[in-house]
Structures are given as structure tokens and as C-alpha cells.
């Protein structure tokens, strides 16, 4: 039956799904973009495959619809091969590059980037990196989405409007420089952000040389000016302290969220965890004291935490300094309350015992006096040279501060401003709107460079779209100075320019934009691409740093992602005199009262200073403490909250001086009374669909409006009044307490010493009845007695452990999972409805030592704790994803066999078989299954309820987002269940690679620990271990041997493959109410 199909010439219009998506892609705007660097071809083919995977039901639906037709017609799909072969690229195999991206707060995050046919799809930490190797934070993890953000700024803007070409931008730049070159650059001001790129600093220096009169101003919304000033005085202008927590056994944090948004070293989390392994013996474990006004991940992780108003941190610092024998500032110390005194004293005594192994840290936002006092404390502890290294970085440039610029502009001394700071002047600068008007009045021509069309971009004369770090050449240094080259993975999608390139343009060394790149002429033999100025500049810097431009060294650096032994030079010491000088200036602050509250402004855990506002993954990543998504809110202590009689999300008006904002309020356990914490970075308007609401109004509330100085983090004398309106907040967790269930388990060091296997006896685990059923079923290891068991000898048996003693509850595993597994974003409304899709749910529980009305009362966990108890609550967080139960309740209830067990112990999920009865979701004790309630990948998130009537232009996944998708994971359509699969795509490819190598021999076991899952790769604390249980040498086997190892809900008999390691609190028995710490964990069932 030979039938020849004559496929008709494709008509111009036609039912979309009859055309192969590949052909659609051929019309795609990316054709030429990608085509340039990667001669047109398999990118499209790859695209088509993964794209039509998304549309598989569309096609299926169509062919079903066509029924009879199916047999004689079939959707025409084309294969578009490369015309010329591309170096290294093997179609269908990912290609890995080492590079780095800047951390929002300075420093660098070394990366390994997975690319598929030239599309970067996933980021991971660089395990080879000496200091910052391992995981990454959620900012870095999510930045891959920024690259493909359909709403990132894509073309130059003139007065916020489109329609201006790159050529005119170049002309503007030339004009700007030429106009001022005569007067040695007078009238030109360059605003930069804190940068850790040597090349950038070098070029900035050159600029200064070329235009001596030009003004260089450094501005960041999360400003560290106070810290810099203090450091300059304390250690000298060009010296920076870098803390290496791996050397510390006692850490005292004065509101320093070093595990969260305020890192103090190259990779503080990783370093801190070095001494956190309870199985190595609790005596060698480090101990963390924390004083803070609100819960931070650091405070939640602390062994001893005391809520303390931010205004009193200087007092605490003074106390500590005094206790440790540093500088005495009795004026401050005297004001301290008694219990604070005792608390600090006991802690100080403990610290003293660890000379050279202890360190005191404080938040970078605090005033100079605090830093000075902390410095003396550290001096007294002998931390300098041991825990703290004083280094001389080459990435600090002498620069003015924003007020200088404002003054200059007001004085009419500045005609042109080039803004290269990643912050958004006209949104986050103090008095932003006034500044905007000032620029307008003074006719200052503003050339703005930025990633998104934000406020500054919209009100600048020229806006230059920024290139993503994966799109352009550059270099970076981690906090300790290790040098990394930033290499492009992909031709700039929209021809954006990097900050370095802008500087080069200012120096007249480069023309910006696409015009420069002309499509390679295929007829001619492949000519070497024109040497990129940025590339040249980076090589020049490299030459200086590496001491000579050695090609091999260069290539090695490119390959490994860092330059060996390129740390900063050590040097500098504490200048004691300065300390007294600063400390004497310290002003005495009083504790906040109900009349005069304090407002603490903090960088947001997901948006930082607001620059990530248009990143949907970060917007939807729940805040580690409040579990709030898509918005910020005022955190109030239970006492204040209940005192005002507020409801969750009720609007309050907060007034500081004459400035005031109104925003939604939430109750935050562990928060100090009369203190309000507000996350910065929200309330940006007209930032597109993700960054702001569809009506253009901002998401959340702009707290910058309260600041009158970029260094203000603690505002005192605030008033709060209750408004009637209730604002709808999307909080992912309704239940804050564990209701006495033994879900999360922890104990103090003493208890752990007494009964190492406490975790296995907690709650009902102590008395689980034997399974006396006649058949054992497919569980455990296969033995003669248990013939149906799992084959550990000949097959892989995958398993995972999560060490709660390391998990700090940051959300980077969630984002990593989202990026690896094509998990869709559902939007605020759906999150509110409890339909968030993230496969990993970071449960955060608050616990108090005793429940009930007062301390004396019973242990009944069902009684709601009081405000006082909540203020001193403990916080624990626990990531929960599919536990891959060997005896999985979800499987047996699926009527269509869509989820069954594999011989390797995985709980497999066949999306294309699922009909969506959701029975499995009901029957999962861990609620680990997610359901696609709508076509989240296809429908615009604000028109989900319109179904097929959604606006055609907005329907379907945006082209650029399609490029990000992992081609090895099905993109789910509506109506199917999805869940964590242990990244089965990685496991399969690992197995296949091994078979490729072995071919006709027998050994197919994947090399020990060679395969890593996304969350494990991402975890900065290294809390997650994953591997082959059948392999005795595997790390996961070692960890599972720990006495702390336990299974959640073990009594249900699901036999999860994922197990948890109980947390150990390294409690100092001398501390006040040390007995109460982790006391709740003894009362679990």
C-alpha cells in the first residue's frame, strides 16, 4: 500500500496547527538573531521539537477533529539542518559553558550554563570554583529568565518612545562626549553602581583620565555608602574586610542577614555550613547568635535568637564591644535593658572562649558607629587575619555619592548624565520624582542604560537596552577576588549593550547595537568575526591580572570559569584611633514605642532593590519568612497587629515625618513590637505585565518614598493608622504552626548527644506496628525472602536526603526546579486561590516552647499562642516535594495507570496519559502533586477565565520564553497533574551516556554521584544529597546512615525515598531560657 503524499505548497494563511511549528519558527524574529552567530538551522529544529511538544495536544486535537482525514493527511513537519556545521554543537546534546554573573550586592556568582543549540536554558553553580563554588541564590538562578523576558527593554528609547535606531544612540553618545571634551569633561557625569568587574573599573579609570573634570558618582538603591565610609576610616580607603565563615565556630549577628540578602564573604552560606555538620560531632559545630527586629533566614537558622528593635542594635553593639573588651561606649551601653545585658553577656563569654574562631557581624545598612564597635569586637576576638581577611580590591573607584550629583545638577554644573547603575534613579532614589523634575528643569540630557524600560528609562533622553551577562563579554571578581571571565552564550537577542560596552562607546572605542554585526556572508569562506571591542578590553584586563596574555591560560580560564590564584592582595589593619573617633559620634537611640514606632527598610528577598520586578519566577517565589508572593507588605509584630485590631492584608497608613505611604499589613511572628519592617523594591509602575499589574499600577507598595537619604534603613518616630480597605495578598501558606505533628524534627545538641536517634523515635514513629500482611509487595531490597523487592545489584535505585540542619529556607531550589522542569508561572490571582505550581513547597512553621494562654499552661498544641509567645517564636523551614514513596498511595488510585512505579524506585508520571481525575493529589499525604487548573502556558494569566476567548495576540507562549524551555521536559497542558520526578530527564540521559561509553560490556552503573538533580545543584547550603542507593560509595547512602535520618509521616507506611535529617540546635546551656529552645519538638506526635 504505497501512497505518496504530495504536500501542497503552504498557503500564506492556514490553521496554525496544520503548519509545523518549525515553519512558524522560520518566520520568527530569532531566525536572523540566532542565525548570525549560529548559522541558521538546528536551533529552529530543536525549537520546533520542543515547541510542538508543547502543542502536542493541539495537534492531537486537530487530527482527532479531522478524524477520517488523519489517514490521508498528516501535519507537515520540516527538519531544518545547519547549513554549515557549528563548532562543538551536537544537535540534541546540551553544551555547557563556564561564566559568571554579578550578584546584586556586588561580588560574582560563578556559573555553569547549559545551552541547547545555542539557547541557554539553565544555570548552575560552578563546582570547580575555589571559593564561591556550589549552589547559587535565587537571584542568579532566575536571571536566565531575564534573558528571555519578553518585556525586557529591546530597542533604544528616545524620551521613553520607540522608533529611534542604534545609530542615533551612537550619535548621542558621541555628541555628549564631544560637547564636554573641550572642558576636560566638565558637565559630564557618569552614575555607576557598585561593580566587581575589573575591566569596568579600569575603563572607568580611563574615562576619568580622558575627562578629568567629568564627575563619577556611585549609586545603588541598597546603598552601602555608610559601610564604605566606615571601612575607609577603619581600615583605609582601598581596604575591604572579607569574612570567611568557614573559619568561625561562633558567629554573632547584629541584624546581619548573611545567609540571606546580606552576604559578608565570597559565599557566606557555603562557608557557614562547613562547620554545621552535626554528624561530625556537635562539639565541632558552629553556634549562631542573632539579634534582629524581624525574622530573617539567618535569625530563623540561629541557635539563639532574640528579637531586638533595629534602633537598639547600636546599644547591643556597644554592650558586646564592652563585654569583649573592645572600645567602651558607656553612653550607649548604659541604656540597655537588663535582659539584653545578660543575653549579650552570656553570648560574649561564649565568644571569648573561641579566640580567632569567633566573629561578630552586622548589617551593612547600619551606621558607621555600629561598624566601628563591631570592628573593635572582632579585633578583641582576634578575628582579623583569621576569620576576617582585609584585602585590597582593584574594583573600587573613588566616586562621589548621589547628593553630590544632585547638588551639581542644581548648580547647573552638569549638562549630560550617563546612568550605568542597575538601580532605577527615578524610582528608588530619595525624592525620586523631585529628582526627575530637577533633571527636566535643568535640561540635563540623560543617557540611561538598563535592562528594563523602568522609570528612568522612560524619562531619559536616550535609553540603551542592556545586554544580559550571558550576551556580552565581561569579567568579574568574587568577594575574595577570584577572577572570572564573563563570556557570551548567545548573540544579544535584541542587540543590547553591556555597561563595559557603553563605557567603550564613551571612550569612542565602540559603536553600540546591531548595525555593527552583519550576517556572515555564507558565500565567502567563514571569516573570523570582527574583533569585539569588549572582548579586546577584557583580554587587556586579563593580561594585567594574569600577568601576561597566555592563550592557554586564557582558554583554561574560559573553560574552568575562573583564574587560579587570582585572589585580592591581603593587607591593611584596624585603625584603633578611628574607632574611638567614630564611636564617640554615636547618638543614643531610645527603644521604639507605640506612639513613635520604627520602620525598618530591607532589600527584598526576591526582588532585591526592585531590579528583578519583571522576573516572574522571582515574583512568584514566596518570601522565605512571610510566604508572600507578588507583593510586599508591612510586617507587624503580633502585639502591634492585634493591638490595632488589623486583619491580614488590611491597609495601614505609615507616616514618618512628613512622608507617608499606605500599604497592606501582615502579622509577622518573631517580630519586635512597635517595629515595622517593609521590603523595598515594590510598587514600580508601568513595568509591563509581570513587573506591574495589568492596569499599570505597581505590584506591592513603594517604600522608597519614606527615605530622604539612600542610607536610611531604620526610620524612627513613625506613626501607623488603620485604614478600612483590605488588600488581597497572595500568601502560599495558610497554616503557620505544625499543629504538633512530627513533620519537622529537631533537638538541642545535648539531647542529640543523649539520644542520637531521637528523630527516629519522635512522635508515632516510635510505635509503628509491624506489617503483617502476607505479601510484602515491591518494597525494600530484593532478597530471597522479598522476591518482589527492588533490585539494588543490577539497577540504579535513586534516593534523596534533605539535611534540615543545613536548609535555611531560601527559595533557590524552588526557582532551580522551575527553570529545569519548565514549571509554569500562575500569577497572583491563582496563587491566592492556592494553585501555585512550584514542585517544591518550602513549608515554614513557627513554633513556641509552650502553647496556651501563658507559659504555665498545658502543652495542648491546638490552643492558639499569645502575642508574646509569637514574638519569641522559633522558625523552621522545610522543603517538601514528591517523596518518591516506594509504596506510593497516589499510584494505586489512578484509574488509567498514568502514574506507576519504575524498577528504579521512581514514582513515574506520564503526563500524556493523565486524564486529570486529581485523585492522586487527594491521596498524597505530602500534598506534593500539582494540577494544571488552566492552560497556564497558553493563556494570558489575566484572561485565564476567558478560556478560548482570550485575546489572540496574548494567547500562546511568548516566543522568547519558548527559547528558555528545557527541550527534554514536556510542557504540560491544562488538566494534567504534575510533580517532582527527581529530574528523571537527567537520570535517563546519565544512564544513556553510560551505556554509550560501555557499549557491548556489562557495567551500566552511572559513576558515583555523577548525576545531580536541579535542586541539589542549586542549594547554596549543600543540604540536598541525591544519588544511587545501590551504590555503596554514594554520598546519599552515607548520609542516610546518619542517626538523624527520618522519614516524614513514616507511620503512614509510604516508605518515601526522600528522607530528612533532623536539625540540631547548638544551644548554649548558659543562655537565658535555653531550656525553652526546641522544647516544642519534644511534644510532637
Amino acid at each position, binding site marked *: 500500500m504505497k501512497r505518496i503524499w504530495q504536500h501542497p505548497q503552504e498557503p500564506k494563511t492556514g490553521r496554525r496547527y496544520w503548519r509545523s511549528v518549525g515553519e512558524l519558527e522560520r518566520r520568527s524574529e530569532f531566525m536572523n538573531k540566532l542565525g548570525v552567530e549560529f548559522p541558521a538551522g538546528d536551533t529552529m529544529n530543536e525549537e520546533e521539537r520542543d515547541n510542538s511538544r508543547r502543542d502536542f495536544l493541539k495537534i492531537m486535537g486537530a487530527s482527532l477533529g479531522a478524524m477520517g482525514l488523519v489517514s490521508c493527511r498528516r501535519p507537515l513537519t520540516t527538519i531544518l539542518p545547519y547549513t554549515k556545521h557549528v563548532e562543538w554543537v551536537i544537535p540534541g546534546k546540551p553544551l555547557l559553558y563556564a561564566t559568571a554573573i554579578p550578584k546584586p550586592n556586588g561580588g560574582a556568582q560563578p556559573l555553569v550554563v547549559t545551552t541547547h543549540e545555542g539557547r541557554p536554558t539553565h544555570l548552575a553553580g560552578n563546582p570547580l570554583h575555589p571559593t564561591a563554588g556550589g549552589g547559587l541564590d535565587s537571584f542568579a538562578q532566575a536571571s536566565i529568565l531575564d534573558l528571555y523576558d519578553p518585556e525586557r527593554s529591546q530597542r533604544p528609547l528616545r524620551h521613553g518612545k520607540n522608533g529611534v535606531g542604534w545609530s542615533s544612540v551612537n550619535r548621542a553618545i558621541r555628541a555628549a562626549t564631544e560637547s564636554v571634551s573641550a572642558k576636560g569633561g566638565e558637565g559630564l557625569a557618569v552614575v555607576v553602581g557598585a561593580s566587581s568587574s575589573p575591566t569596568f573599573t579600569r575603563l572607568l579609570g580611563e574615562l576619568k583620565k580622558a575627562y578629568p573634570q567629568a564627575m563619577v558618582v556611585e549609586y545603588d538603591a541598597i546603598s552601602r555608602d555608610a559601610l564604605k565610609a566606615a571601612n575607609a576610616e577603619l581600615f583605609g580607603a582601598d581596604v575591604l574586610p572579607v569574612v570567611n565563615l568557614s573559619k568561625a565556630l561562633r558567629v554573632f549577628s547584629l541584624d546581619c542577614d548573611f545567609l540571606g540578602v546580606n552576604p559578608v564573604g565570597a559565599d557566606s552560606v557555603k562557608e557557614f555550613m562547613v562547620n554545621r555538620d552535626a554528624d561530625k560531632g556537635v562539639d565541632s559545630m558552629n553556634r549562631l547568635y542573632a539579634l534582629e527586629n524581624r525574622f530573617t533566614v539567618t535569625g530563623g537558622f540561629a541557635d539563639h535568637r532574640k528579637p531586638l528593635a533595629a534602633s537598639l542594635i547600636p546599644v547591643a553593639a556597644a554592650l558586646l564591644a564592652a563585654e569583649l573588651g573592645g572600645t567602651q561606649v558607656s553612653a550607649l551601653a548604659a541604656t540597655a535593658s537588663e535582659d539584653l545585658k545578660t543575653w549579650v553577656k552570656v553570648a560574649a563569654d561564649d565568644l571569648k572562649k573561641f579566640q580567632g574562631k569567633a566573629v561578630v557581624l552586622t548589617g551593612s545598612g547600619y551606621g558607621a558607629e555600629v561598624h566601628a564597635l563591631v570592628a573593635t569586637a572582632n579585633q578583641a576576638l582576634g578575628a582579623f587575619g583569621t576569620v576576617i581577611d582585609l584585602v585590597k580590591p582593584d574594583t573600587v573607584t573613588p566616586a562621589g555619592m548621589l547628593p553630590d550629583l544632585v547638588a551639581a545638577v542644581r548648580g547647573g554644573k552638569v549638562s549630560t548624565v550617563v546612568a550605568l547603575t542597575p538601580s532605577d534613579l527615578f524610582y528608588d532614589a530619595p525624592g525620586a520624582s523631585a529628582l526627575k523634575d530637577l533633571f527636566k528643569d535643568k535640561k540635563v540630557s540623560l543617557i540611561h542604560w538598563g535592562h528594563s524600560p523602568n522609570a528612568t528609562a522612560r524619562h531619559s533622553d536616550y535609553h540603551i537596552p542592556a545586554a544580559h551577562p550571558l550576551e556580552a563579554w565581561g569579567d568579574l571578581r568574587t568577594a575574595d577576588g577570584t577572577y572570572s571571565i564573563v563570556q557570551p552564550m548567545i548573540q544579544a537577542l535584541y542587540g543590547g549593550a553591556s555597561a563595559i560596552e557603553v563605557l567603550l562607546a564613551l571612550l569612542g572605542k565602540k559603536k553600540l547595537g546591531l548595525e555593527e554585526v552583519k550576517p556572515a556572508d555564507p558565500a565567502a569562506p567563514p571569516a573570523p568575526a570582527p574583533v569585539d571591542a569588549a572582548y579586546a578590553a577584557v583580554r587587556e584586563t586579563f593580561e594585567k591580572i594574569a600577568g601576561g596574555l597566555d592563550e592557554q591560560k586564557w582558554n583554561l580560564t574560559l573553560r574552568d570559569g575562573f583564574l587560579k590564584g587570582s585572589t585580592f592582595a591581603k593587607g591593611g589593619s584596624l585603625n584603633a584611633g578611628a574607632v574611638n573617633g567614630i564611636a564617640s559620634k554615636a547618638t543614643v537611640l531610645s527603644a521604639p514605642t507605640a506612639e513613635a514606632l520604627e520602620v525598618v527598610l530591607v532589600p527584598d528577598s526576591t526582588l532585591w532593590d526592585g531590579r528583578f520586578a519583571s522576573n516572574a519566577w522571582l515574583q512568584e517565589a514566596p518570601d522565605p519568612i512571610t510566604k508572600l508572593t507578588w507583593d510586599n507588605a508591612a510586617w507587624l509584630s503580633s502585639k502591634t497587629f492585634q493591638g490595632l485590631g488589623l486583619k491580614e492584608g488590611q491597609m495601614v497608613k505609615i507616616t514618618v515625618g512628613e512622608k507617608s505611604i499606605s500599604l497592606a499589613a501582615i502579622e509577622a511572628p518573631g517580630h519586635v513590637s512597635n517595629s515595622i519592617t517593609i521590603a523595598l523594591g515594590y510598587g514600580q509602575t508601568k513595568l509591563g505585565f509581570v513587573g506591574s499589574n495589568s492596569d499599570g499600577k505597581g505590584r506591592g507598595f513603594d517604600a522608597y518614598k519614606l527615605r530622604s537619604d539612600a542610607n536610611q534603613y531604620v526610620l524612627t518616630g513613625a506613626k501607623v493608622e488603620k485604614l478600612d480597605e483590605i488588600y488581597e495578598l497572595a500568601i502560599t501558606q495558610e497554616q503557620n504552626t505544625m499543629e504538633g505533628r512530627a*513533620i519537622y524534627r529537631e533537638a538541642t545538641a545535648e539531647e542529640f548527644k543523649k539520644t542520637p536517634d531521637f528523630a527516629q523515635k519522635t512522635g*508515632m514513629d516510635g510505635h509503628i506496628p509491624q506489617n503483617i500482611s502476607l505479601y510484602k509487595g515491591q518494597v525494600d531490597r530484593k532478597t530471597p525472602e522479598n522476591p518482589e523487592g527492588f533490585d539494588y545489584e543490577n539497577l540504579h535505585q535513586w534516593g534523596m536526603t534533605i539535611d534540615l540542619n543545613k536548609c535555611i529556607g531560601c527559595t533557590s531550589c524552588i526557582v532551580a526546579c522551575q527553570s529545569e522542569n519548565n514549571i509554569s508561572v500562575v500569577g497572583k490571582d491563582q496563587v491566592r486561590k492556592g494553585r501555585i505550581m512550584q514542585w517544591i513547597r518550602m513549608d515554614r512553621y513557627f513554633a513556641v516552647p509552650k502553647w496556651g494562654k501563658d507559659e504555665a499552661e498545658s502543652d495542648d498544641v491546638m490552643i492558639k499562642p499569645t502575642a508574646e509567645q509569637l514574638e519569641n517564636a522559633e522558625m523552621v523551614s522545610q522543603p517538601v516535594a514528591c517523596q518518591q514513596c516506594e509504596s506510593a498511595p497516589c499510584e494505586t488510585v489512578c484509574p488509567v495507570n498514568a502514574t506507576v512505579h519504575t524498577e528504579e524506585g521512581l514514582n513515574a508520571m506520564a503526563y500524556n496519559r493523565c486524564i486529570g481525575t486529581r485523585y492522586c493529589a487527594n491521596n498524597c*499525604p505530602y500534598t506534593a502533586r500539582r*494540577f494544571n*487548573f488552566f492552560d497556564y502556558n497558553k493563556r494570558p494569566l489575566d484572561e485565564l477565565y476567558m478560556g478560548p476567548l482570550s485575546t489572540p495576540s496574548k494567547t500562546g507562549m511568548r516566543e522568547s520564553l519558548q527559547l528558555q524551555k528545557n527541550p527534554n521536559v514536556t510542557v504540560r497542558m*491544562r488538566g494534567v497533574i504534575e510533580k517532582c520526578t527527581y529530574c528523571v530527564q537527567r537520570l535517563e540521559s546519565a544512564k544513556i551516556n553510560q551505556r554509550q561509553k560501555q557499549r557491548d560490556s556489562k557495567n551500566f552503573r552511572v559513576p558515583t554521584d555523577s548525576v545531580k538533580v536541579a535542586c541539589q545543584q542549586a542549594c547554596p547550603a549543600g543540604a540536598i544529597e541525591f544519588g544511587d542507593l545501590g551504590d555503596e560509595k554514594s554520598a546519599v547512602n552515607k548520609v542516610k546512615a546518619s542517626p538523624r535520618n527520618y522519614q516524614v509521616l513514616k507511620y503512614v507506611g509510604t516508605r518515601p525515598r526522600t528522607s530528612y535529617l533532623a536539625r540540631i540546635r547548638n544551644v548554649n546551656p548558659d543562655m537565658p531560657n535555653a531550656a525553652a529552645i526546641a522544647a516544642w519538638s519534644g511534644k510532637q506526635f
Partner: protein
Amino acid sequence: MESTATASNSSAAPIQPRVLDREPLVLNNRSYSWITNRICGIIENKQPMLWWILFLPSVVLTGVMAFCFVYLIATGVGVWGQKQPVAWAWDITNFVFWIGIGHAGTLISAILFLTRQKWRTSVNRAAEAMTIFAVMCAGLFPAFHVGRVWMVWFLAPVPNANAIWQNFKSPLLWDVFAVSTYFSVSVVFWFIGLVPDLATLRDRCKPGIKKTLYGIFALGWRGANRHWSHYETAYMLLAALSTPLVLSVHSVVSFDFATSVVPGWHTTIFPPYFVAGAIFGGFAMVLTLMIPCRKIYGLQDLITAKHIDNMAKVILLTGTIVGYAYCMELFIAYYSANYYEGQAFLLRALHGPSVPYYYAMFFCNVIAPQLFWFRWARHSMFWVMVVSMFVNFGMWYERYVIIVTTLEVHMTPGAWRTFQATWVDKVTFLGTFGFFMMNFLLFLRFLPVIAIGEVKGVLPQSNPHHDPHQEKGIQEEDLMDYPDRHVAKTVTA
């Protein structure tokens, strides 16, 4: 028939002590033709105004329901209130509710038939009809609640190119078989019962489309006794088959919950508890429908106070069983010493998000029916109506409590979430009532609401040994307090 026997004695020898009469099943010695006329009259005469007043809204509601399902399928399950961890809510609640109601019919026709309860004859036809329509409503929900309706054929074990099959360990698949079986068997049972009456209708109408249709469905029935003897065997067999079936169906439905691991679902008491509940709710619905019917169509002589009384008693019994189940759940939760089980019920009854539902359920299903301990209540149509209304609501609450409030507080507190229903949830459920009522009204309009043949069969004169030649009139002492006796008086045989 005893009644007539004793009556004849009393007329013969006045001195004998009088044996108390047993209430006749049909009052006023109605003749065969009276019954035929009365029942067929309902179909042949114009429908009362009330019929139209009820019918038109039902049709509208049915349309609305259809719209809701179309919207659901076109847009996604998200239009309902479901969320993690409440993956089932109103959909399955309504399913269990309707399927429960669907149990009374088969029960009346099957179990009462086997137990030789002659009084069933005047209610079984309507009850069976109700069963079928209720099961139709029930079937809609499992069919449409799935995420990908167009893939629902995956549930059918047909050979396919993918060489993949169903999972017969899944209670959901058992459901598919149970419900479809139940529906088909009920239809068969109902139809077989209808044949002789359709013949009656056929023989009464003038030639025309109606006669043709009735004729076709009457299968050319000619009342031959050689047919009757097979027919009765068949009927008995079907009754014998339906009895275990009706018990199995709701047991299987209860397996959906009982075989799961969810605390509050994982309970061995569920099958009997669900079955009792089903009968309970079903009878309530029968009463809700029959009481107006007999009033509107003047069927008091056929559906007598005795019938109502009996059904009220059944409700009282099953209601008490259900109440026992509620208490037993609580007791086991306490006695099992399983913390999670205990919590599930504490949260359900004391401080969970949906406590009010629990007490609403408890009142409607356990407290309200206790009224039926009193004879006056069982005999006052008003109170019977009130109580059955309560039960109808209560049974829906029961399913809601079992399904939603349990899922809201699942095992890991971090995932707890409270459920809110959307307008689609509510309108769809309302729509099914329209669908149900529409079907039932059409049934009233076109089919005999009472099994003519069967009722004739239980008349005293239908006994071959009863001598028709010494017929006696109504005796005053027979006039015990039948509230609706006077209505019967006006009609003459």
C-alpha cells in the same frame, strides 16, 4: 385480604369479638377500571398549571447546567473552586449526593419486593424513575470533573496502539463499572416493570403517533398468563440481582474514600455508613416528590397515609444508623489513639475551617428525623415534608463534610488551605436539580406514575379465592383515622 375475610365473618356472626382490621393498601375498594382511569388520566388529561410552573424553570436550569459544563470544558477545571490540597470539592460531593438519592428507587422495588412488602407497589414506579434520573445527574460529575474530558475514553479497556491498559486496582475504575452497571440495570428493571402498563396505555389511545410509540415499547404485550409466569420470574430475578447491586454501588463509591490514606477517609465503617446514608437520602427525596404528586393528582387512595408512614419509619431507622456512624467515627478517632485521625475529627467538629457544615449535617440528619418517633408527625404531610427537606440538605452537607473539610486539613499543615466555591460550582449544582426535575416532570407527563398492573394485583378481589359475589360496602368501623379518607368518599367506583 385478611381484612375482607374477617369482615365477612363479622357480618355473619355479630357476637364474635371483632378482629382489628389491617389497613387496606388501596382505600375505598376501588375497582380495576377506577385505578386504570385514575392513573392513565394523569397522562391523558391536560397537565395542571403547577406542572408548567415547575417545568419551564427546570428546562431553563438544565440549559444553564449545560452552559456551565461547556464553559468548564472549554476553560479548565480552574473555573471551579478546587485548589491544592482540595482537589475534589463540589463535583464529587454532588456525585455522591445524587448517586445516594438514586438508591431509594432500586431499594424499594428490589428489597421490598423480595421481602414481600406489598405496599411498595404504589410508590416503586416513581421511585425507580427518580433513581434513573438521579443516576443521570450523578454520572455527569465524574464524567466532567476530569481535567481532560476528551481523554476520558482512556477509562475504557479497549485494545489500543499504545498497548497500555487501565489500573484495575483503582477504586475510581471500580466506580466506572459500578455506576454504569447500576444505571443499566435500573433502566432494565424499570422498563420491564413498565411493559404491561405501556400496553394499557397503548390500548387506551387512539391510533396515532402516541399509540405507535406506546405500542413499540409495549412490545405487543397481551397479558397472556404464559407470559406472566416468565415475566414474574424475570422480575424476581432482577430484584434479586439489584439488591446486592444497590448495596455494592454505594460501597464502591465509599471505597473511593475508604481505601485512601487520608485521615477522615480511611475508615472501615464507610460502606455500611454510606449505604445507610444513601437509602436515608433516597427515601427523603421520594417523599419530597410523592407527597405533592398524590395531592395534585388525587392519588390519596393509592398512596395512602400508610405508605407515607412506612417510609417515614425507614427514614427514622436509616437516620439513626447514620447518626450511629457519625458517633462511631468520633469514637474510633479517639479510641484508635492515632493522633492524625484524632486531629482530623477535632478539626472537623471543633476548630477546623468548616465546622458549621458539620453541625448543619448533624442536625439535619440525626436530630430532625427523630420527629418520626411520633405518629402524628408521620401522619402530618407538612411535618413529613419538612423533615425530608432537612434530610435532603443534610445528606449534601454530609458529603461536603466528608470530602472537602477533610481535604482542607490534610496531613502536612504547611499545605492546608480553605475551600471557597465559585459561582460555577453553585450554578452547576443548581442546574442538575433542574435537569432532574425536568426529567421527572416529563415522566409524570408521559408514563404511568404508579404501576397500574401491580396495584391491581394487590387488590382484595385480585385473589382468585376471594368471592366477588358477597361484596360488602364500606363499614363505619373501618373509618379509622385516615386523614384523607373524605377525599376518597367523593369518588364512586
